[in-house]
């Protein structure tokens, strides 16, 4: 009993810690003038999300979050930022006019209202299947085939194989498009 209380206290502490750090980092990310500093704040957001995934026992997703987003995508972002020499805030030309601020505030308020409305109507609680606790207990009792990867890999390569492969074709199309655009510019010179 005491152990359970301690556990939920620990859990709550972790949730609020990582959640607050994530939100603070996200705010810092959009307000920093220096693109590199902003990118580093975004890295921090990714880390906090990974920590929250671990707390949900989704350790594979957490590892992928760090590996793909923090370790690869953000490194490429940083590389591009440095290569384009966006280091000087004065040279930055982004849409920060008065109308931009007003529009952003409006969108933000609408989203906040949506979250509050959902919370009020207990929509999220109603979306949770009633036998979730039983299913979770059953899943915890059976040893996982193929470690922690199996439960993710099996549906991905059986049920959702077509969607999975189509996504990779989509990514391939993006890469080919980038190559074509890059090539055209050098040819025109």
């Amino acid at each position: 009993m005491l152990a359970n209380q301690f556990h939920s206290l620990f859990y709550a502490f972790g949730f609020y810690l990582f959640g607050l750090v994530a939100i603070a980092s996200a705010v810092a990310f959009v307000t920093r003038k220096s693109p590199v500093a902003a990118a580093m704040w975004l890295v921090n957001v990714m880390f906090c999300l990974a920590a929250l995934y671990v707390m949900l026992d989704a350790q594979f997703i957490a590892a992928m979050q760090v590996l793909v987003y923090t370790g690869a995508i953000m490194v490429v972002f940083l590389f591009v930022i440095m290569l384009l020499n966006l280091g000087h805030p004065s040279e930055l030309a982004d849409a920060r006019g008065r109308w931009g601020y007003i529009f952003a505030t409006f969108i933000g308020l609408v989203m906040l209202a949506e979250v509050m409305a959902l919370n009020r109507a207990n929509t999220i609680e109603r979306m949770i299947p009633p036998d979730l606790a039983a299913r979770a207990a059953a899943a915890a009792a059976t040893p996982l085939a193929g470690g922690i990867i199996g439960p993710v890999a099996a549906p991905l390569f059986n049920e959702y194989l077509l969607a999975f492969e189509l996504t990779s074709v989509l990514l391939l199309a993006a890469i080919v498009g980038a190559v074509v655009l890059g090539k055209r510019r050098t040819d025109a010179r």
Partner: protein
Amino acid sequence: MMHSLSFLLQVANPQLPPTMGMFVLMGLVKAGAAFGIYMLCVAYTTLAERRVAAWIQDRLGPNRVGPEGFLQPIADGIKNFMKEEALPDGASKALFIMAPAIAFVPAMLTWAVIPFASPLPVPGVGLVDMVVADLPVGFLFTLAISSLGVYGITIAGWSSNNKYALLGGLRASAQMISYEIAMGMSTVCVLLLAGNVNLNEVVAQQGAQGWNVLLLTLAFFMFAVAALAETNRVPFDLPEAESELIAGYHAEYSSMRYSMFPLAEYANVITSSSLMVTLFFGGWDIPFTTWDNLPPWTITKTLLTMALYVSKVMFFVFFFIWLRWTVPRFRYDQLMSLGWKVLLPMALVYITVVASLLLGLDAAGVARTGWAFRGAMLGMNVVFVVLVFWVLDRGRLISPAYSRVERERLARMRAVADRGDLLSGKGA
């Protein structure tokens, strides 16, 4: 999964897993001990590097501070703490100060999931796993965390407000992205064989099946090259190429902040060596015997396996140092083409073949621990090694550069050299 607190008071059987309280306690003890030992090893790897370098270049190296220079790392540490810390003009201060720490921490964190001995039975506590954190995601954790090391270098290069440092940082990020992919791909075969990403399972599988280096030599080769590139050491030290970039990304650093970068490099060397040992050389497994892989666990087993693990890791640390003082640096285009045009396609083909072979063997009902399975894997391995290192390589990586010269021309060149005119310097 917190048990009720009464479990904490129970007298534990040393052959069973410990209770939650003891688990947390032992985790703290292991983390503390591992941190101390790891830092000590990193410090002494610097000494090993300098002494081995001296030995390879036929000089003495640092041998004055203490017996055989044994106190040199401590002297260096004190010196670095005493020096002035410079902050260049126009540097972005917070990132400049943070960068060395960002470079160092991932190297050390990665090491936390590597098992270093067979489980230790502690009376009154239970069976303690000899790994700081036995994560279910094991190897993915090492990949994820080691991919963060590049931030330290890139940020250091950018925040210094120096064009040479920036170029070094850019090179580092391009290099590490390229080789990370090859590194991940080369280990997929290992994970396919183990059927799991937990490093304890990988070690257990090698104990039962034989070391992966024998079954997957090509994967080991690709992993070793990629690991070398990830540590930014010669022949892949382009981010700090002193002949072109002064000192690259750490050109503006001084004192202890500078010192963190070499320390991070040595930490990476130790971590990469440990990974090579764990993935391809059986981890703490003692070869030719199954005695060490089976319960009941004893303290003798733990000590012996740990000694073997440490000696394997030390060999690979030596291997890294040996390479550094043997081979010259790659050119930048060579580096990129090796990563993207050689290692990545090779890894993809290799994964396909290994996966098909495993599927075929499993479908044929061949037991994974039997000799038929090992024989099939070994046969495939021999074919691949011959194909890559003798047929496809031809003077690019492994075989000597003269293997691309025509045979008759080579004979003529050798005949000229054998006359002694070239060697004695008399002229023809």
